[in-house]
């Protein structure tokens, strides 16, 4: 498929966010994490396994009138560390930056240790993790010291939706 034809398949938006260079096959996970199924009036475009110069294949997600919070950006970094965020205003990309995994992750997913204080109902507490390694991803719970790896984190992310 030519670049021109591929572009035609992806609707332009006036204002919003394009999440580009998503790990192939992960766009639906990003869709789920951002709770986009509950977005009613904005147009959303999902492209899965389209050609990419940089990655060979990539996924892409374009959401009209949506701008990501730092927490949402961190969630994307957890499952698609290569993704880039394009902010679109008046049909133009006004800002472009890679997703960045913060050193600390707060309130994004639950600790996998059921006995961790951060999992106890009604206590005024959010989960908190230190990123101890980025590749492969490992985090340590700052409450109970439990170490979690990529697959456990992905599992918790989806479970918590």
């Amino acid at each position, binding site marked *: 498929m030519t670049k021109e034809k591929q572009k035609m398949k992806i609707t332009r938006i006036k204002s919003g966010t394009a999440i580009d260079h998503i790990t192939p096959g992960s766009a639906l996970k990003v869709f789920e994490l951002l709770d986009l199924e509950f977005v009613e009036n904005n147009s959303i475009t999902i492209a899965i396994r389209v050609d990419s110069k940089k990655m060979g294949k990539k996924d892409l997600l374009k959401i009209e009138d949506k701008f990501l919070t730092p927490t949402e950006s961190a969630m994307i970094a957890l499952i698609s560390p290569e993704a880039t965020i394009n902010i679109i205003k008046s049909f133009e990309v006004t800002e472009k930056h890679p997703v960045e995994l913060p050193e600390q992750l707060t309130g994004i997913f639950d600790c996998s240790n059921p006995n961790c*204080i951060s999992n106890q109902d009604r206590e005024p*507490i959010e989960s908190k993790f230190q990123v101890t390694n980025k590749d492969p991803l490992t985090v340590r719970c700052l409450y109970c010291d*439990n170490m979690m790896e990529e697959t456990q984190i992905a599992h918790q992310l989806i479970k918590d939706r």
Partner: protein
Amino acid sequence: MPNQFAGADFITIRDKTKDQLEGMMDRAEEMEKYRHNGTDAARGLLMGTLFFEPSTRTRLSFQAAMKRLGGDTIGFPSSEGTSVQKGETLADTLRTVSQYVNIIVMRHPSEGSAKLATELLDIPVINGGDGSANHPTQTLLDLYTIRKELGEVDGHTIALAGDLRYSRTTRSLSRALSNYDVELILNSPSQLRMKKDLLYELKNRGLDPVESDDLEHSLTEADLVYATRIQKERFPNLAEYEKVAHAYEIDRDLLERTGNPLLLHPLPRVTELNTNVDDLENSLFFSQAGNGIPVRMALISSLLDLTVR
């Protein structure tokens, strides 16, 4: 030297340096003078002892230590009879008690509970055990006992024996030992081996522990053995527990065959430590428990920044 623990919390051994641990033990040595007759350094000060889980030694020795320093304690030995029974959160209980006291020591079944307390309170918090995660003050008294008996911690072979999977005492102690130049043997039934994340952490901190399920060999190699209870409540069924517990026992015969290494145990013991070892000269577990007093006096007086004389 300025007191770097003044106003601090004591939650985990993970972030403590060898100098800090040795400094605390030096202070504990000074406290030996006041261990039986007391001082009035903490007069008018109150400690809250909040024990949401059972304890004999930790709770009573903290109370004794605070009283020997001239202070007093209020608290509870279990959540029975408190508003926790009515559904009060840990956070609300902590915030309330902190209005009444100068320092809190707490034990709670959830891992990370003491860390939560530090985020909520302005007064020093001491972790008296949180689930199977940490028991840092037990480690201080364990180290103190090792140093007292062997002269120094460095240069010795130490075997941790028993339940290394769920025991918070060996979790904290092994972290502390990673600050020292020691040979560490980890002896356990195969079902109760140390968790991989902790093993990995110890290796990253420069220790290279030897894992074994051969108790006789481990005891022969060790200068000092730190035995722990096989925790019945951790087993999926009673039959499995009985099988492991029956096969794992340190008794007088075994100690004599293996050259009588020094023997520590955080207590309580069940079947892993036969009572026929009690009168052996190297059975140190009761004096080890006693060392909780000077060590906890040292810790409390450091956190409250008291001048003791």
